[in-house]
């Protein structure tokens, strides 16, 4: 049929119905989350007067960024077919290591920051290595890491500091420059913005680029979609999965340093439960829980929904006790919407 003209690569196939931009949009994994984000935005814009103020926007973005920095690599990991339940406490571990190393060695805090990077990456590598070696489900492996890190965080901190929090390192050498990198603010048009928003934007951009424009990204989709098929065509499945865990660890290091340098001291019990929020953001953003499908931008939208909801409730002057209920309802709705949209998009192709 089309075999005639040799230069017909750009000629449209007559069997293809022209796909409207709307339908193309419907096929995107982020769609459900964007619709959800609009709904949440409109909702709080109506019920909370102060929600639409520019200063509120800065606060919402900050709340979103603290989750979004982690949600992007967690989304990639989920597309690659795995979970990381240790991601939440890994952030705290990273902050504790950095703080305690600098304090105990009375070194420049940048030395602690660097040591923390190495140790956190080693934790990520441990997760990936255990997973690919034992072939146990990542749920079990990282649940183990989660519990072990929770215990280590508390145990080591008490052993070294005598209390459940670290000593203040605010007067130590290098603290100010580290704070500038990980926890500074700047003001744009009267709105105070935190540097984490920048980290978030950069990480999401890099994650997106890796996912859709690099070989590694192709491999992520493949190992999550059908690992055996990927292995059979020569994809390095083990290396890909370990790489994904290293990505989560890197983001945990960034988040941990932010935690440390914005408050100066770190509470060793923090971070528990956050791993689920990262996963929720990724799932709201269109990641399939079974792997092989999703997007990093979606995770950013999911994190933004989280930020709007957590701060919107405050602006609406409601009791924040209701927050978790909203988050749960949102997760269910977004997942249902995603499933429905995907079914429609595939059926009408």
């Amino acid at each position, binding site marked *: 049929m089309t075999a005639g003209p040799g230069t017909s690569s750009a000629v449209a*196939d007559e069997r293809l119905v022209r796909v409207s931009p709307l339908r193309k949009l419907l096929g995107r994994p982020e769609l459900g989350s964007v619709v959800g984000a609009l709904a949440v935005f409109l909702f709080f814009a109506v019920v909370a007067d102060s929600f639409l103020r520019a200063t509120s926007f800065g606060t919402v973005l900050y709340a979103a960024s603290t989750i979004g920095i982690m949600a992007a690599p967690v989304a990639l990991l989920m597309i690659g077919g795995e979970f990381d339940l240790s991601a939440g406490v890994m952030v705290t571990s990273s902050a504790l290591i950095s703080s305690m190393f600098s304090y105990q060695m009375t070194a420049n805090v940048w030395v602690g920051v660097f040591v923390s990077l190495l140790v956190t990456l080693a934790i990520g590598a441990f997760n990936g290595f255990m997973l690919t070696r034992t072939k146990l489900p990542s749920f079990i492996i990282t649940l183990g890491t989660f519990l072990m890190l929770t215990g280590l965080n508390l145990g080591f901190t008490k052993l070294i500091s005598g209390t459940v929090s670290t000593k203040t390192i605010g007067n130590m050498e290098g603290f100010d420059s580290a704070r500038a990198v990980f926890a500074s603010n700047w003001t744009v048009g009267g709105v105070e913005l935190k540097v984490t928003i920048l980290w978030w934007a950069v990480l999401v951009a890099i994650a997106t680029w890796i996912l859709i424009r690099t070989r590694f990204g192709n491999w992520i989709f493949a190992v999550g*979609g059908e690992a055996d*098929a990927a292995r*059979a*065509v020569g994809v390095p499945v083990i290396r890909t999965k370990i790489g994904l865990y290293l990505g989560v660890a890197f983001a945990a290091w960034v988040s941990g340093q932010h935690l440390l340098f914005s408050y100066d001291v770190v509470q060793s019990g923090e971070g528990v439960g956050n791993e689920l929020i990262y996963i929720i953001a990724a799932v709201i953003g269109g990641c399939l829980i079974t792997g*092989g499908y999703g997007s990093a931008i979606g995770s950013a939208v999911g994190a933004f929904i989280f930020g709007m909801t957590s701060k919107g409730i405050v602006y609406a002057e409601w009791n924040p006790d209701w927050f978790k209920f909203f988050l749960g309802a949102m997760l269910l709705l977004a997942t249902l919407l995603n499933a429905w949209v995907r079914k429609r998009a595939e059926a009408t192709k």
Partner: protein
Amino acid sequence: MTAPKESSGPADTGRRALVELDHVSKFYGNIKALQDVSLEVRAGEISCVLGDNGAGKSTLIKIIAGLHRHDAGTFLIDGEETTLANPRDALDRGIATVYQDLAVVPLMPVWRNFFLGSEPTKGTGPFKSLDVRLMRQTTRSALLRMGIDLRDVDQPIGTLSGGERQCVAIARAVHFGAKVLVLDEPTAALGVKQSGVVLKYVAAARDAGLGVVLITHNPHHAYLVGDRFVLLKRGAMAGSHTKAGVTLDELTRQMAGGSELEELSHELERAPGPGPLGGLRDEDGTSG
């Protein structure tokens, strides 16, 4: 079109063996999964491996594909004795395997699947990225060359029919310069018409000069396209024939095992059997 078939008699020469298994055995612990199996694959020929479930077909495939190592016997590639380290090693030596159900990643677009594991890139250093335009175009043209006219290379490959998916996987192997194509039950889950289409592409790959190993439990499909036939039973060789040396009836009988089949054929004779003629017509339409 009939020339290669006539030349594949017992006296054939000229074509060299691309892959040769000589009395190869494989043990899993104390279980003999495969024992003394010999197989020859030549360029431009189709070697069929026939056997029922549990006959050792999968084990044989895994050895040729580099997933498992053989424990005894010799495995020759281009006349050189080898042991493959992994599937990548097999691919690098020109052996491509298309598995029955895990040939592709269903949720990924056709063009991403086509290049999976061998993606072309452009740029250097940290800015090295996929050459998406090239990937899309090449996928389309490589499929066209095999006679597969796909509507949209952006659709998830899972939305294609089983036969189409097999064809894409075969076209992929041909495009990446495979010399030997191993097909694991390519027609097992397909209807009659789809099977015919897939067999046509198998023949097209053969005509492109590849050596093909066709694993199947369907002697009708095997006889339509095959040049050599190896029968496996309980891990051992139950027969080895060339096309000229065996008839379809004999092949079918040997596969089902003498007396069992006699009974079966008595039972089935009353019903109008699904003769091989419909399939044969399909093969005559093969134009490569």
